[in-house]
């Protein structure tokens, strides 16, 4: 059976990488991700993995080396945070459009400036249109579980897309929790061997990767990329089902917490879901019909499924841990409200931007959101469509 351990999120993900035993890892240090690849580098040095570890001179090179390795037919990984992801930008898009099944843990941190090293989702939310599958984690256990599943999702022949597995910087990455690891052999068998389709190293069947692709075929290739993301949704669910058999832990596109009969609910990603669940529990004890929907898979966005889950509720608050600076809302709100368009008896829906730059989010903050929703239900009026939670102004 599985192994009960106390691990930080970074340690858990490093253990997961060890069990996956990728062929190549290329990485550059950045807080709060550094630990993942640093721990992993000790596995390399001590012969615990067969990985070629490349200590590149920047994140742009880290993603480039990963793309090179993956094109050659290797199972390749890297990890980063915030400005590291931003520096990778050019190659992040290329990894997706070349259909390379790279898996990358991203430890969420506020994107500069001003310089900040603490958690918000501005880094990965900025990359939401890069063509990567994006999976968010609530705690170290989920980060580990999502990482292992990511390999199978990425390498599925119907997908062949890179996958970002995120966890909240410091809150998950550096906090220790009790969790369960699977046995090494079990993981290796479940993850399986990667058999690339057209690797550069297959010298008998030479291929060209990444050539110029102008107006004659570029649009068709982009359409194929879009199709892969559509196909990813059923694959993610199949992989989750199979992973449940292995681990006993079940995952979907999102998690519904006391949502069935809820009248008011919040939509949230990452570690704040844990805080919010405690608030829901307390509210339920007071007879308030509160619920929660935690988005696990943000790309592909499960619009239809979320609309079905939220339809019939009276008021919904979307929690955004980043801002779109579009003068309307955060990115998650835009997606959720768009998903709700045309839904009969659609609930009132409001946005909360919270936890920017690591600003602490307490149960009282979340409680105030549910209080606002209760007021909206009572009065039928939305006073504020967008609230910056706990802001001094």
């Amino acid at each position, binding site marked *: 059976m599985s192994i009960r351990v106390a691990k930080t999120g970074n340690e858990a993900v490093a253990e997961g990488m060890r069990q996956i035993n990728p062929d190549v890892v290329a990485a*550059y*240090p*950045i807080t709060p991700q550094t630990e993942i690849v*640093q721990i992993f*580098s000790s596995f390399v*040095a001590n012969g615990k993995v067969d990985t070629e570890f490349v200590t590149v*001179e*920047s994140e742009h090179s880290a993603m480039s080396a990963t793309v090179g390795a993956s094109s050659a037919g290797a199972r390749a990984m890297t990890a980063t945070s915030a400005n590291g992801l931003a*520096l990778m930008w050019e190659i992040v898009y290329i990894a997706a459009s070349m259909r390379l099944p790279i898996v990358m843990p991203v430890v969420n941190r506020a994107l500069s400036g001003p*310089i900040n090293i603490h958690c918000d989702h501005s880094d990965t939310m900025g990359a939401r249109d890069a063509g990567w599958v994006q999976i968010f984690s609530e705690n170290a256990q989920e980060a580990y579980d999502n990482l292992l599943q990511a390999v199978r999702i990425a390498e599925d022949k119907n997908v062949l897309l890179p996958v970002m597995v995120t966890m909240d910087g410091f809150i998950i990455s550096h906090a220790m929790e009790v969790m369960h690891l699977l046995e090494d052999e079990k993981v290796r068998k479940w993850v399986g061997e990667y058999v690339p389709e057209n690797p550069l190293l297959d010298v008998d069947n030479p291929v060209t990767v990444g050539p110029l692709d102008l107006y004659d075929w570029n649009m068709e290739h982009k359409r194929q990329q879009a199709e892969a993301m559509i196909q990813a949704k059923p694959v993610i669910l199949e992989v989750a089902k199979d992973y449940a058999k292995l681990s006993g832990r079940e995952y979907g596109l999102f998690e519904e917490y006391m949502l069935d009969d809820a009248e008011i609910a919040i939509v949230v990603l990452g570690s704040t879901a844990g805080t919010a669940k405690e608030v829901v529990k307390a509210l339920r004890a007071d007879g308030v019909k509160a619920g929660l929907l935690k988005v696990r898979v943000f790309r592909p966005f499960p619009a239809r499924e979320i609309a079905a889950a939220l339809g019939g509720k009276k008021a919904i608050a979307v929690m955004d841990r980043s801002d779109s600076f579009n003068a309307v809302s955060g990115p998650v709100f835009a997606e959720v409200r768009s998903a709700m368009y045309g839904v009969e008896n659609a609930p009132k829906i409001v946005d909360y931007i919270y936890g920017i730059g690591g600003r602490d989010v307490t149960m009282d903050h979340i409680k105030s959101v549910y209080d606002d929703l209760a007021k909206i239900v009572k009065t039928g009026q939305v006073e504020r469509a967008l609230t910056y939670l706990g802001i001094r102004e």
Partner: protein
Amino acid sequence: MAKSIDEYLRTQFMPHIWCPGCGHGIVLNALLRAVARLDLPKDQVCVVSGIGCASRAPGYLDFNTLHTTHGRAIAFATGIKLANPDLHVIVVTGDGDGAAIGGNHLIHAARRNMGVTTVMFNNSIYGMTNGQYSPLTPSGMFAATAPYGNVERNFDMCELVRASGANYVARATVAQARQLSTYIERAIENPGFAFVEAVGSCPTYFGRRNKLGSSLQMLETLKKNSVTAAAAAKLDPAELRGKIIIGEFYRGDAPGYIELYDGVIERAKEAAGK
């Protein structure tokens, strides 16, 4: 009586983040004493940094300061210098920031002979992220990412920058604080690209892992291992192994980029008949 450096410090942001025994304070002190001797007005100095332990310095300095992204300080500084050539633009950078992720900007600023002074705080390690080896970690030394010793070779930054075309190139360790300060002073005075490598020490992540003793012992070691450029010229490579060559390696007077650019403006004006 030397001018006090206190007026250049934003003491309200103290205490600083550097560990006890860190060499960065000595480098910063040398820089400020150079500025004091040159008696530069605070408003005529702009200090630019990237990311890392060294790059935290501008936060404590009461000049015009700009804290930028990892490795890019020299690129930002180039923009500042071009926008306001009268400013004394000083970049403070580390070995990870300036030699790894920002190495390209460094060599091209040197090639252009851009009028920027760069002081590289070389502590041989990525300190801020807990001690990964950098391009200036000497071969064989231990680091978080090199538990059995670093197999990579390290750059000689002074040779690199000299070969790239800089007007002024010098190196001293934090065990030669006065010399270091003199080099920084001459660097600031030079109108072209000027580079001073300040070899320091990171007792927390480099020293501890390599069993180099206390910060004081590390300072002693730096002093003991320093060889002047003149003395080094008489030694063979085997004798120079593990030594740090200090001194001024190049003092040139090639026109800086700003002077050349002013020439372009003059020629363009003449061509336009103005």
